[in-house]
């Protein structure tokens, strides 16, 4: 299901796509979808959904195979803080870490970023009112859906 949403800040029209029901992606799991020719991976973690291009910007590994880890920080040897459990991606090949929320890389934060997409969750009832038109993904009023903007 896709619809034309408001213009973005770059002035381009974005299209909102329904890509999954909230119940089909288990917590800690993910689903790979192809939208507008792009392979995108949608993660479900701590009750939230995040969407990223399914390609590590370093050497191209599929991010769907990354480990979902915590942010581990240490100010001095022997002390550490662990936070944001499950929200960090550790790439399946070289272990590059990315923030699921923004795509920011922890290896080279200023220059390398995994492409992240805005995600929304909507009730089927809202979607059924339109102006949305189901194209490839059936929508029923009973479910809740994950939408991404591209």
């Amino acid at each position, binding site marked *: 299901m896709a619809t034309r949403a408001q213009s973005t800040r770059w002035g381009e029209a974005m299209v909102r796509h329904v890509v999954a029901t909230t119940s089909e992606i288990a917590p800690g799991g993910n689903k790979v979808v192809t939208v507008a020719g792009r392979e995108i991976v949608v993660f479900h973690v701590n009750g939230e959904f995040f969407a990223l291009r399914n390609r590590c910007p370093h*050497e191209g590994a599929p991010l769907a*195979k990354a480990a979902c880890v915590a942010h581990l920080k240490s100010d001095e040897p022997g002390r550490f803080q662990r936070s944001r459990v499950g929200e960090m991606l550790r790439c*399946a090949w*070289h272990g590059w870490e990315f923030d699921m929320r923004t795509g920011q890389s922890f290896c080279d934060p200023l220059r390398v970023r995994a492409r992240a997409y805005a995600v929304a969750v909507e009730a089927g009832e809202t979607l059924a009112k339109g102006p949305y038109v189901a194209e490839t993904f059936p929508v029923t009023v009973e479910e809740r859906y994950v939408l991404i903007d591209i």
Partner: protein
Amino acid sequence: MADVLERADAQGAAAVTAQDKLKVIDCDIHPSLHARADLYPFLAKRWQHHLETYGGHLRTPFTSTTPYPRSSPLLARRDAWPPSGGPPGSNLAFMRQQHLDPINIEFGMLQVLDLLVVSQQNQEFGSALQRAINDWQLECWSRPEPRLKPSILVSQDHVEAAVAEIERCAATGNYVQVNISPRANEPLGRRRYWPLYAAAQAANLPLGIHVGGYGGHAPTGGGWPSYYNEEHHSNAHSMAAQLTSLIIEGVPERFPRLKFVFIEGGFGWVPAISWRMDKHWQRFRDEVPHVRRPPSETVRERFWFTTQPIEEPEHAGDLRAVIEWIGVDRLLFSSDYPHWDYDDAHSAFKIPLTDAERRKIFNGNARAVYALG
């Protein structure tokens, strides 16, 4: 930010288009045993029993794991576990689907690490294992998939058995190199290993030196590191030590037709060590009169280096300077499939390469070194 990404994507796309047309020779692919019993058709009952009862004995503090925990299970890419089961690298069909076909591999050089044949301390057992592994590579990998080329893996500290194995395998005409470890009981230039070099030269096979192995020494000159992060650098240190050992002991001069391929040790360190060897050679030539030429000339004529793990300088353009210092002719592309530090043929090189350079690094250099048709 967005601009940078878009530009990088565009360059990547151009590289992919050029790369797609190019057949790749991958100088480092690791096949794995699905189970130890895979070796039994090639291993005498006496040694099957030994393997089951005693297992391997390496000169490390541990027998069933590595002294340093690796960053991922079995060192592997997390997406390389075959869906049908078994460890990464153990399923030929999956290797074709995930690596050989999409990367357009024309030839792949097999490097076996299972059971660390090169480091087995029971030398009779090591000799039996080397024979079994060499037969297994040929029968279970190269025959069903002729793109994959087996290497003659030898347990080098039992020199006599290793020479016999080189002669046995070379006579079949199927093997592309002789493989030894840079972590033996002594530095590789020492005379005890020279019979191996004589046998490799007589068979017209390059000597492939792949990182890894346990010779009983600390992996760095400074002692035992604390972390994998720290220990991983020792791959490069070991290679640099072996490059100097081979050259300063006069091995290239003594075996003038032998080619040396350094595998998985990186290459960023090569220019610095070459400069330093030249400098010392100029000053202390009378200590080693058998070294008749500047070491850097020998490096440029007789040694080749595989590219993985690719160097990743802060400014990608610096990689270009390193490659030019070493020489485009000396580099052989390698992926290290299925290990975690795998290099992807399409994206590993973050610098533009001309078509001619790409053809050399990804195909032509290896074709010449390994005399592939």
